[in-house]
């Protein structure tokens, strides 16, 4: 079963409490466990651009969104594990869960 670990931060994306090495260790552990489906870290949220398309099919492009929403998505992992307990176990180990961060675990819909 696939779960997405959405790594969010409440302090605008800065990950002060975790080091690059912490992430390397976690990433290697996920790889070694053979559960990795995909993972990406996102560039700073100030580089975000939003696209909307209206009923006439015309796109609007805007800068942002910025940190009005208190939790900013900083990256994600998709892992393939047997059940929620296993997914929660990996979320607990994720450096993004520490400090001002949080990891939201969502099952990937199966169509």
């Amino acid at each position, binding site marked *: 079963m696939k779960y997405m670990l959405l790594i969010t931060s409440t302090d605008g994306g800065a990950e002060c409490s975790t080091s690059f090495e912490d992430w390397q260790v976690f990433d290697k552990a996920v790889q070694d466990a053979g559960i990795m489906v995909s993972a990406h870290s996102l560039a700073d949220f100030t580089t975000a651009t939003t696209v909307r398309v209206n009923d006439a099919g015309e796109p609007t492009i805007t800068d942002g969104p910025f940190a009005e929403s208190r939790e900013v998505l900083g990256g994600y992992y998709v892992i393939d594990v047997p059940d*929620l307990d296993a997914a929660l176990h990996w979320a607990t180990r994720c450096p993004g869960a520490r400090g001002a961060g949080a990891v939201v675990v969502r099952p990937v819909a199966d169509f």
Partner: protein
Amino acid sequence: MDEQPTDGSVTLSVAAAFREERGRLLAALVHRFGDLDLAEDAAAEAIEAALARWPVDGVPSRPGAWLMTTARRRAVDRLRRDRTYADRLALLAVESQRAGPAPAADAGGDDLPDERLQLFFTCAHPALAADDRVALTLRCLAGLTTPEVARAFLVPTATMAKRIVRAKNKIRTARIPFRVPGRDELPQRLPGVLQVVYSVFTEGYSASSGPQLQRLDLAEEALRLGRILRRLLPAEREVAGLLALMLLTHARRDARTGADGELVLLHEQDRHRWDRDMIDEGCALVPVALTGGPPGPYGVQAAIAALHDEAPDVTSTDWPQIVALYDVLMAITPSPVVAVNQAVAVAMRDGPAAGLARLDALAGEPLLRDYGPYAVARAELLARLGRYAEAATAYRRAIELAGTEPERTHLRRRLRALESPRHHHPL
């Protein structure tokens, strides 16, 4: 099936006798099929079949096995009929080959393996909302129907049904597993299960709202769940502690309300109306809960309850020991509520002024601002110190905060006694 009018009380009592059996059956089916909805339907159909057949054919020699065989057959039929379950059936065929022979019947002579512990941990999973955990546990393990759970919590059946559907949907979609946590996870997960059982109990013991002070059936359900857990986890000291605490509290149920249903406080209760057998059973569990490691919060609270229950009256109660136990409790689970209880014990040991000083030191606690028992404790101690005007203010605040009518009646009586100048007496 429980809602259907049946042909008289005989059938109903048979149905009641099935309530514990239903939990075991359900747990065994969930273990086998990994699907709560399917297990519930199959269990209901098997019990229905038993209610129809047993009065005619006689009760089979191994009733549990009969129910399980019948339910399993119904479940497999449904899996074959229902296309959405087709994949699952294929998966099960693989898993059943891997699983090997069914576990042997346990020493108690039961003919149905007891898988209820798995179900306890699933129903109390931290990924579920706290209210949903309680509702699911009552439904799956206490065998209450959805309307019964709804009545117990004074919410409309539709609201409760929605809550249960939502919880079951999360179990299925997010794949919350049916498993007992490993040794290393148990310390983290067991408190959640105990919390569910204890919140069923406290809701039954001191209804948070409504006309009646006590809702006995919920407390009885919690005791039943506590006893099941104690059988399933005999080595867990906090399970013994929780059961002891519930027994030692429930033992006072008859003395806790007066003739008109009004609240009677511990120091005014007729201790002859306490349930001696239940006290004995609870007291026997306290040493189990407190031996062999650092004490847990339920064990310590049980020890406090035991000191109350064993004392012939308030004055001969071992207050120094109770204050000391509250110190232990504060060290394990510090909370303003525990501090209020300790302040009351200090007042009994060292006099009302010492207790009031402790209470006043807690005045800034946001958690206590709307906490009725805090206002009550202050009112009582102020009255005992002769500070009647302040006591009256505290009683008025307590009346505002009281959740049930018997509590309000009791507090209004206190307030009236205080305000009539001829009746100034220590409370």
